[in-house]
């Protein structure tokens, strides 16, 4: 445990000294915040409240960039080898990196909530406990996804390419950029296979409909299952050495991380409840009333 805390503390320091990090986790999220708040929502409190889900999702989902790049460059440069000489388990490396990310991302999340309150005068943030639980789950899950990416790639360049592909899928097909409800039907159906979609949806439900954690059961359980699976797989595929070869079935393992959302996607595509609720949140007055789709 002491090892994990020591590692996490050092990771935080190193990351804060990295200019790219400041850009991706402070400047970019702030840019998106003001773009959404002032341009898309025209500063109207209800509209800003509706967009807080996507804004926070951007901030949280961005975590996987830093984590995957750090892991792959540390391996590529032989930094992990030096760590390996000390009695450190791969799990300590993994847990400490995710833990560091809680502390690195949380201030931006809180700042965004405060700015929404004081600049755009958003008064109702729904169920903040649900919001924070989802944020923590999101940091864990998307971070672990980044570690899996770093595990199946050998160079920072390869990692970048996969990150870009994932990033575009996550932000454009999930409702984080364009609301899910207005996306073409085909895209909506694809979006239902992406964790990001559930993440954005969960945050919006928590903030707009005051959703309790248990009513967000599907979202919470699926994100949790995904986080645990991805963290487990990244620890199985962890490589200290730059020249260590990927086990032949590694890519299969990595693909296994899509399982929870593959199943959920099939289910949601079948019953259409989430899409209906998303449409309702978009048009209707977000109230504490149960949306029609929930009445069945």
């Amino acid at each position, binding site marked *: 445990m*002491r*090892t994990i805390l*020591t*590692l996490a503390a*050092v990771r935080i*320091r*190193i990351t804060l*000294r*990295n200019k790219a990090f400041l850009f991706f986790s402070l400047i970019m999220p702030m840019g998106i915040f003001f773009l959404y708040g002032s341009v898309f929502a025209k500063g109207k409190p209800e509209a800003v409240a509706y967009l807080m889900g996507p804004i926070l999702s951007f901030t949280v989902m961005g975590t996987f960039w830093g984590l995957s790049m750090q892991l792959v460059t*540390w391996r590529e*440069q*032989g*930094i992990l*080898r*030096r760590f*390996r*000489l*000390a*009695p*450190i388990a791969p799990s300590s490396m993994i847990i400490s990196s995710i833990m560091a990310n809680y502390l690195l991302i949380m201030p931006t999340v809180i700042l965004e909530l405060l700015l929404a309150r004081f600049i755009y005068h958003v008064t109702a943030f729904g169920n903040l406990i649900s919001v924070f639980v989802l944020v923590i789950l999101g940091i864990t899950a998307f971070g672990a996804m980044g570690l899996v990416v770093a595990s199946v790639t050998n160079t920072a360049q390869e990692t970048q390419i996969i990150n870009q592909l994932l990033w575009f899928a996550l932000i454009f097909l999930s409702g984080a950029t364009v609301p899910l409800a207005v996306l073409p039907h085909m895209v909506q159906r694809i979006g239902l296979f992406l964790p990001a979609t559930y993440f954005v949806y969960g945050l919006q439900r928590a903030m707009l409909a005051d959703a309790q954690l248990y009513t967000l059961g599907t979202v919470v359980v699926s994100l949790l299952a995904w986080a645990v699976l991805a963290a487990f797989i990244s620890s199985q595929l962890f490589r*200290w*050495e730059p020249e260590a070869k990927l086990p032949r079935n590694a890519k299969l393992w990595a693909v296994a991380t899509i399982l929870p959302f593959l199943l959920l996607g099939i289910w949601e595509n079948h019953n259409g409840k989430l899409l209906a609720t998303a449409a309702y949140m978009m048009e209707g007055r977000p109230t504490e009333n149960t949306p029609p789709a929930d009445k069945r």
Partner: protein
Amino acid sequence: MTNPVLQVENLVKRYGEVEAVRGVSFSVDEGEVFGLLGPNGAGKTSTIEVLEGLRVADGGRATVCGLDPQKNPNELKNEIGAVLQATSLPDKLRVSEAIRLFAGFYKRTRNPNELLRRFGLEEKRHSFYNQLSGGQKQRLALAMALVNDPRVLFLDEPTAGLDPQVRREIYTIIEELKREKKTIVLTTHYIEEAEKLCDRVAIMDHGKLIASGTPRELKQRSGDTTRLEVRLAKPAPKEALRQLEGVADALEVDGAYVLHCQRTAPAIVSLVKYLEAQGNELVSLEIATPSLEDVFIELTGRRLRD
């Protein structure tokens, strides 16, 4: 009364088709400085990295402090310290943070500040890793290797790529550790490093140990003869050179001839006469007492540094 802290029996390490280490055996006693001397690619690093637990052997047995590097990796890592052939740390990590970070991983630790002082890094304690010079990085690597007060210290090419002055600094540090009776295993392709620092040296080439002993023993092996290293304008048959008065043996190494002679003066005279008779010219001549380099040349027919 000595007891080996490190034992290696018939160690084998392969990389695909390539057999880097081919049945190496040796042991190192407590408090001894043991050197693996050999050219690049001889299998030194592979051997030492198996002992550090960084690589898995494909055959044979190795124990360090009675521990198997693969079966008890964590216990082993608490007992050893190591400087890798190339150490790298995150660029934006400060010197004092690096040493504290690593101190945090062990049960038994030495005072990080004291280590920084000892290695002359006190003024650099707030510098980022990427602001350090090569010598400072290597001193930090040494300080980090000692942070758990290890029983065995592995140094893989500790002075490779450093300029002569820094190299001497590192020698002083290693000599100090030697006085403290630390067990040290080091690899090197520098003759003087092996001669100066090691109690015992094993010469390694093509994955095998081809000789071992104290530097003195190894040199005695090659006889108490003086070496004449000569370069000639035209090649000369080795047999003819061997026939010269005072010359015991003649070898050809990288286009130069090395003559072993019991008596130097007559050998030079007879060599000059011979060359004159042949219409050959003397390009250079060097007189040397036997060194480990000669031992290496005799055993392999090659120079250590290519």
